[in-house]
């Protein structure tokens, strides 16, 4: 066996390295195109923007790992931002720590609603969350009566929180929001990689039938994934409120697609079972970087961002499909799960060719 560097790293790490490479290339490219590109202000802007989308994308990735999808997160962010903004506006003396807790709890409730419908009634998550995307938003509209939250109505500590620096390196100021978001991502990363309960999310997405046979409670795992997604969307809603101050009924619109984009570009398999939060972190940064940079690039209009994002997602999915299909060519459990017509009619018989390949 060759003991080269390339053969020792896992496909997931490979994907992360490739993403990192693309990220650096993108930065280098734009730094030749845009004057004064690599400055502290841009870093600031992108990092705070990434902080919000990262939280949502991390939650989304947990759901996607279980072979589901959560399209309602944008509406959850909007609702939580508005509701929490209204509450602190009405009761400014409320202890600061309770505010994010309220946001998280509220988001978790929305997630639990999705998870209940998906796991209890076995409904396709795409339909359920497409519906709750509309339902949650309309509850928001009803709740607001068309009015908006304004910065003026919020306590000072909240608006200042968005500008609070955790630490400063030279010109680069790192905001608390960014630190919190990254810490949350790392906590989820550790949970997913180092805890059995976390690994079961992968198991459920990788082969739900095998998960059932192995005695894993599949319904509960899916439920947990949606609750996590909702809770993180709730926290993101709190940060959204702190950062923008002015919240209208369209707050958070479209974040669901952006988060799915970050997840898929970050190397989480849209069909579940594999991916890492670190990849999602890079994916979210890449998407935000592209968006922010396209706005400043003189050669093309900023309006390219959605077109680029959509094609990026397609590219990522196509890559995943063909990569996993190469795996399927072997007599694997996934092949058994995704039976071809021929397999249905006869007991699967291992291909001798594949056996020889394994023997070497």
């Amino acid at each position: 066996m060759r003991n080269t560097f390339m053969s020792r790293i896992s496909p997931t790490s490979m994907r992360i390295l490739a993403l990192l490479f693309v990220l650096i290339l993108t930065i280098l490219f734009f730094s030749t195109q845009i004057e004064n590109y690599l400055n502290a202000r841009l870093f600031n802007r992108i990092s705070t923007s990434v902080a919000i989308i990262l939280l949502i994308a991390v939650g989304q990735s947990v759901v996607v790992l279980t072979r589901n999808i959560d399209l309602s997160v944008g509406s959850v962010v909007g609702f939580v931002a508005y509701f929490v903004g209204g509450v602190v506006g009405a009761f400014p003396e409320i202890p600061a720590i309770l505010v994010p807790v309220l946001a998280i709890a509220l988001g978790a409730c929305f997630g639990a609603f999705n998870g209940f419908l998906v796991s209890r009634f076995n409904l396709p998550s795409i339909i359920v969350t497409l519906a709750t995307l509309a339902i949650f938003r309309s509850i928001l509209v009803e709740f607001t009566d068309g009015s908006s939250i304004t910065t003026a109505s919020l306590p000072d500590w909240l608006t200042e929180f968005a500008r609070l620096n955790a630490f400063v390196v030279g010109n680069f100021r790192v905001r608390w929001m960014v630190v919190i978001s990254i810490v949350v991502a790392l906590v989820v990363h550790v949970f997913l990689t180092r805890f059995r309960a976390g690994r079961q999310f992968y198991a459920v997405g990788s082969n739900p039938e095998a998960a059932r046979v192995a005695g894993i409670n599949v319904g509960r795992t899916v439920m947990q994934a949606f609750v996590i997604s909702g809770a993180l969307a709730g926290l993101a809603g709190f940060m959204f409120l702190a950062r923008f101050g002015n919240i209208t009924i369209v707050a958070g619109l479209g974040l669901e697609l952006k988060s799915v984009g970050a997840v898929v570009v970050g190397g989480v398999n849209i069909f579940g079972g594999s991916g890492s939060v670190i990849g999602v972190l890079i994916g979210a940064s890449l998407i935000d970087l592209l968006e922010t940079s396209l706005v400043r690039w003189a050669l093309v209009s900023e309006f390219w961002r959605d077109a680029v994002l959509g094609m990026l997602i397609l590219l990522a999915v196509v890559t995943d499909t063909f990569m996993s299909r190469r795996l399927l060519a072997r007599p694997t459990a996934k092949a058994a799960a995704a039976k071809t017509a021929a397999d249905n009619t006869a007991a699967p018989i291992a291909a001798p060719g594949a056996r020889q390949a394994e023997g070497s």
Partner: protein
Amino acid sequence: MTAPVLEMREISKAFGNTRALDAFSISLEPGTIHALVGENGAGKSTLIKVMMGIHQPDAGSIVVDGREVTFRTTQEAQAAALAAIYQEPMVFPDLDVAENIFINHHARPAFVRWRALYDEASAVIKRLGVSVDPRRPAGSLTLAEQQTVEIARAISLDARVLIMDEPSASLSDHEVRRLFGIARALRAAGVAVLYISHRLEEVFEIADTVTVMRDGKHVSTRPIADITEERVVAEMVGRDMQGRFKRMPSAQTGDVLLRVEGLSRAGAFHDVSFTVRKGEILCFSGLVGAGRTDVALALFGIAPPDHGRIEIAGQPVTISSPAVAQRHGIAYVSEDRRKLGIAMAETVTANITLPMLDSYCGPLGLVDKRAESADADTFRERLDIRAADLNMPVGTLSGGNQQKVMLAKWLNTKPRLLLVDEPTRGIDIGAKAEVHRIIRDLAAQGVAIVIISSDLPEVLSLADRVIVMREGRFVGEFQGESATDESVMHLAVGAAGRGAA
């Protein structure tokens, strides 16, 4: 003799009108390998599902360590230290071997220490006397290695009963050796192993005790030393005489319609050559997974062969899709009515006319419903399909009538060569006789017929010629009268010696 760890007492389980298990009893003792043999459809899979809490028995009791228990879920069966591995390995392709083993191991800390996990996985695998790198993703393993992973999962949970359902069905010879090594290691460790297999040579090599089951009933349980292969075969096939059909050879056979030479498809079948004449009924016998269906699928263009040549009426042909096969006058009646045969939600008429739909259409592509119903009606009479209304979904008919609809669908294509896979699986005895009559009539009209059947009396009553397949190869051929239950079964299961090969 030690006390049994698991006893199944008088278990019965019926699905609709089919009695899958009929007061079946078996008891498993620690430190023994107990083989369970029986023909396809004898009720073995149902037994496992009852043992593992997937199905609940209609009657009878399950006793673990002398205490009666009920399993409502797989988890409950697992908690009672039962584990099963299935023909198709149930692993997580994206996770590595160590995780596959310990994914739901509640005795372990909730926090995963990867190094310890790998060490322990190595230790568990080592106990099985094999070597699999615990860091490899399970998706990259061979089926045999995936099976090892499943066994390791069972061991790590301290399973005291391990059920192996046809574990060798998709393994190569040296992989089977390795599996036997594992089974013996488990026996030495005091595990009760229930080994389910068609292959008698394996059973006689590995088992301490053999139980034969037939039609959901217990036939015999004996120590391996007290029984011979011939006896087991006789007990497996032995039926009441009334279930038999009288053999009536086809009157006349004509020119060679299909000639197949050296046909192979990697992993499915190897170097298959045969001919079929017009009006002849040729039967492929053998066990499930012997590659018979794969040969049919190759002839029908679903899974084209890698090598070899196919001639129809003297013309070499390449069959790349079912549409092409139809054009050559080939029809394939699938064994899997539900998944591949007919669409249950669609009407009887629509199912019958589907393959020939374009021929019912005018220039605008609109279906001539009158012509369509007329043809469907003809088949209703000809095959005696009992359906009040041919515009009802097929799913509302009984199994036997569904089977006839499926036959009608393919007869409507006016085939020259009819491939029929398990023509009477899961239908009652009356419908069975009718299906047989239809097949004989077709042969009398000069259609060349290839039947794939695991039902020996059916094979013997229909066939002009029988070809036996085992592990993707032709292992023997009989002219009509020379085939008997035992001679065919011997070749199919690979029992030593005898057989008119």
